[in-house]
């Protein structure tokens, strides 16, 4: 992994069309700004990982008795 030291307002350019700028540094929080083409997906890493784990859990399940569950749900419409 490439590790760079940057100061506030300094940038990193990735692949010619993605810019990461250090907006602010306060204590252990770094605020970054990212400019990228509209088709580039940008997510917080821990959120993406949590969703990946939840999806794996959802995909592993055997076919449950959905009818029984649906009967327990209160109608909300």
């Amino acid at each position, binding site marked *: 992994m490439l590790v760079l030291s940057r100061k506030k307002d300094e940038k990193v350019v990735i692949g010619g069309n993605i810019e990461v700028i250090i907006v602010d540094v306060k204590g252990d929080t770094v605020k970054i700004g990212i400019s990228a083409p*509209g088709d580039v997906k940008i997510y917080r890493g821990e959120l993406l990982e949590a969703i990946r784990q*939840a999806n794996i859990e*959802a995909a592993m*399940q055997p076919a449950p*008795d959905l009818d029984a*569950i*649906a009967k327990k749900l209160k109608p909300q*419409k």
Partner: protein
Amino acid sequence: MTETQPTIRFKSSRFGDLEIPEEKIIRVPEGIIGFQEFKRYALLDPTGGESLFLWLHCVDDPDLAFIIADPLAFVPGYRIDSSEPDIDRLSVARKPAPALFVIVTVPPDDPDRINANLIAPLLFFESENSLYQIILENADWPLRYFLLEGEGSDPNATGCDPASPGEVL
């Protein structure tokens, strides 16, 4: 059966051998998060429209399937803000409005803990038969919304109380 429509056969570890018209195949160009390599799915409705729940079943892996549901059926106020980066990235505003689904998990050892992922919903563009899982970066919908308890409620206080069978709504 007439041979007018090309069909595709695939296997399901849950439902056995299946066959659907080729035109019903749903493309998932970006894959479901964690399963990016799988791009072709079928929408299965084993109950024929009776149930709240559908299956999004991978055509290329017999084990890979997700239970999905319309979130508005249990979270009436659920909405996706148009300022979400993924809404812009997928040019949602320039297409016919997509159908909205969320992935539902039923823990095998405790089905009453059934929960829905509200932070990463599915957009189904019916007109182009494509589906995307998006992430709502600006919202604080829960990753696990417990359908039988409601978000943030005490699991011991609601739900499966056999002593109050007369309760309606």
